[in-house]
């Protein structure tokens, strides 16, 4: 028989205002196994925990029930307290009488009655609790970062600086991500490439960082501290160890009509190409869809041109397997497709562009060499209209419900830069709200309005139509309550951003949560913003939600700290609430093995002693380090051999009985 102590927390008035705690404490003494009960104002405080510890020592308690807030809040606190005075931490259970009782009920009689029942269920469970010992598993001291944008680079650099190995897996031929495409950054107007490319070089040069560019993570198995990832290195058709990045092949290549991804398709590139001059790693890559050799079997000019003999048309995809202790997802974002936004005529009219396209136009390495020219006729636009919230904050199926966060600021930046460089240009910005929460953001926006004379119009654009070589923009000015028509030369759409399409696949692969907008879900929105709900998986950058560069870098470093904290441990404690098979009851049917999502169950031939009869039987065996404790196998087991420690059939039945009593 257990000797159980029941401790009822007032939580100030959070619980005590709706639950008669004295009554609960008195009722506890009538429950089987309960030898002690007490109530206290703040059980989680040092003195409250002291009360629990003293009772464990003085009354010789073998089990503890704390009636308090959610176990998600303080279960760990009380288990630690119990452990500190020699009681197995898994002999402690929490009855959640705050979130599940006092906060949702107003009537004291009703609240007290429910609190008593919840306490009774917890006592019934503890009566059947058994001491559990958590196993240990080794930590592989290497991290995997999926995505090589600024988020991934920063995370990798911070982890590497702490002395741990990091692999960056980037699906594109170069790291750098979206930030490499930007011209200037707000609100300081730093040159984006000038602050990013040194970091790219640092990452490539770091002896602890290995970059797998043009590669994708194909599958991940394992668990915190011990993941195994399969990485597919896509064939570049260029040997990385030989290519010097001289670029001669790209000049000689006769196939030059492929839209250049780096310039958002506004100019073309050759079939063998280097994404951009500062690419890291700087190796050429052949696009087989465009290459004449792959299409016709002829050509072969690049192979003949290359002095280093790096071109290899027979290269195949290569899959490598690596072990990691922690994984950081930094898959970033894309600008949404604008096919469904017919009102702006983006797909029909080349002079309707996205802000990212404008970014390339204004960049010295861009398609126009940095000159602001219309894509259609390469003339200088006199009148430019910016449209905010294209696809953001909308209710239609093609819209995103959220704010993309960065658009207000980059539009102010664009408007300011254009007015600075071409003072003869008139600039209009149609906005719903201007959102500038950030250090020096509001001041930056005010400068655009006051110093640079950008016309901000509160209202939306209903239609953009071509009219005699110009773009007629029909909009509304909500402050003046009038319709306005502007004949513009260039229309720039601040299109919403969305998580990269790979995010969903990767989330599934890593069994982490994803929200309705395909952003990865953090473990707690306030207190655990860079961890995913799955142990050992961390989030960095826009894959978790829209954010600008400074925020991305902060989060990237935060994720790195979490990874370092994990890798610094030689061993980690496993969850002891895992499945266990009763070898005498198991009939070796394989039902449990089939439902296990982790492959934690294998079958072994083992000699068992069945009531004096010794024989070798095929029975289920659970790998406790791999089992995550979901319990699917316990229900699938037809003979009742499989049970889940900490949530045994008997324990749950006892809770059911206590509630229905």
């Amino acid at each position, binding site marked *: 028989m257990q000797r159980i102590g029941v401790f009822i927390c007032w939580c100030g008035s959070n619980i005590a205002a709706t639950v008669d705690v004295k009554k609960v404490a008195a009722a506890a003494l009538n429950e089987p196994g309960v030898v002690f009960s007490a109530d206290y104002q703040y059980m989680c405080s040092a003195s409250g925990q002291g009360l629990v510890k003293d009772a464990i020592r003085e009354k010789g308690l073998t089990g503890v029930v704390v009636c308090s807030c959610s176990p998600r809040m303080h279960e760990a606190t009380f288990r630690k307290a119990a452990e500190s005075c020699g009681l197995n931490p898994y002999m402690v259970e929490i009855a959640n009488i705050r979130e599940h009782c006092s906060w*949702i009920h107003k009537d004291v009689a009703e609240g007290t009655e429910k609190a008593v029942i919840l306490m009774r269920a917890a006592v019934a469970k503890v009566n059947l609790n058994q001491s559990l010992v958590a196993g240990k598993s080794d930590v592989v001291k290497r991290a995997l970062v999926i995505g090589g944008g600024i988020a991934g680079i920063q995370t990798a650099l911070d982890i590497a600086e702490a002395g741990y190995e990091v692999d960056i897996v980037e699906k594109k031929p170069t790291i750098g991500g979206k930030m490499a495409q930007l011209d200037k950054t707000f609100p300081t107007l730093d040159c984006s490439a000038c602050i990013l490319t040194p970091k790219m070089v640092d990452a490539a040069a770091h002896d602890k960082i290995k970059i797998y560019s043009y590669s994708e993570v194909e599958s991940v198995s394992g668990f915190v501290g011990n993941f195994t990832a399969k990485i597919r290195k896509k064939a570049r058709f260029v040997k990385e160890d030989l290519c010097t990045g001289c670029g001669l092949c790209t000049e000689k290549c006769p196939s030059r009509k492929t839209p250049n991804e780096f310039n958002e398709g506004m100019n073309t590139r050759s079939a063998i190409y280097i994404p951009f001059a500062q690419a890291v790693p700087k190796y050429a890559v052949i696009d087989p869809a465009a290459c004449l050799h792959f299409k016709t079997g002829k050509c072969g000019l690049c192979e003949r041109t290359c002095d280093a003999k790096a071109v290899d048309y027979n290269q195949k995809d290569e899959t490598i397997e690596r072990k990691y202790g922690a994984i950081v997802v930094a898959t970033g974002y894309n600008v949404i497709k604008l096919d469904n936004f017919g009102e702006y005529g983006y797909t029909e009219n080349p002079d309707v562009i996205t802000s990212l396209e404008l970014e390339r136009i204004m960049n010295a390495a861009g398609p126009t060499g940095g000159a602001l020219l219309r894509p259609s006729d390469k003339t200088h636009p006199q009148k430019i209209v910016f449209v905010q919230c294209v696809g953001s904050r909308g209710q239609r199926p093609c819209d995103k419900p959220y704010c993309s966060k960065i658009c207000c600021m980059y539009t102010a930046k664009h408007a300011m830069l254009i007015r600075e460089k071409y003072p003869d240009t008139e600039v209009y910005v149609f906005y719903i709200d201007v959102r500038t929460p950030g250090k020096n953001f509001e001041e930056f926006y005010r400068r655009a309005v006051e110093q640079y004379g950008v016309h901000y119009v509160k209202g939306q654009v209903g239609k953009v139509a071509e009219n005699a070589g110009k773009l007629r923009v029909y909009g509304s000015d909500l402050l003046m309550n009038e319709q306005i028509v502007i004949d513009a030369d260039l229309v720039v759409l601040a299109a919403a951003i969305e998580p990269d399409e790979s995010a969903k696949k990767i989330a599934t692969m890593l069994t982490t949560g994803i929200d309705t907008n395909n952003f990865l879900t953090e473990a707690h929105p306030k207190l655990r913003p860079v961890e995913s709900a799955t142990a050992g998986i961390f989030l960095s950058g826009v894959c978790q939600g829209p954010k600008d560069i400074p925020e991305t870098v902060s989060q990237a470093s935060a994720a790195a700290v979490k990874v370092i904290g994990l890798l610094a441990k030689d061993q980690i404690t496993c969850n002891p609430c895992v499945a266990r098979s009763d070898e005498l009851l198991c009939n070796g049917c394989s039902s449990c093995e089939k*439902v296990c999502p982790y492959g934690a169950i294998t079958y072994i031939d083992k000699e068992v002693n069945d009531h004096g009869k010794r024989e070798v039987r095929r029975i289920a065996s659970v790998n406790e380090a791999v089992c995550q404790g979901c*319990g699917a196998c316990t229900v699938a087991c037809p003979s009742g051999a499989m049970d889940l420690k900490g949530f045994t059939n008997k324990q*749950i039945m006892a809770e059911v009985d206590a509630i*229905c009593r």
Partner: protein
Amino acid sequence: MSVEHESFKPTIVAFCCNWCSYAGADLAGSGRMQYPANVKIIKVPCSCRVNPTFVLRAFQRGADGVIMCGCHPGDCHYSTGNYYTRRRMTMLFDFLDFLGIERGRTRVEWVSAAEGARFASVMNDFVKNVTELGPNRKITDLRTKPEHKEGE
């Protein structure tokens, strides 16, 4: 009838998975979203941990309704657990219906950790349905209910 309904307070057992719906219930609590005190939550690691025998046991012991909450399909913390729940419970509820335990007394719902309001509205709706159905007497083991013994 209506008078009886007002005085009748059904016993409801709610199995909530640790990762989504238990957290959703916590969120309903921190948001002070009211739902009836009849609902008593049992925490399980995953909705797939709920053995059909637990549901039978609850009705046997006099529960008037049993609800299971898990992560939304595709969002299961253990990737596939809630799919098992969905299939197992479809069969179980059919069977219970055959035994005379109405469909309104059993339910599987998906509530994410972010859906406190949804948790409260699901519980309000479920309690209302079960209250309308009245007390469950179908497979109740009367030996465990001394006060029922005389009434029957």
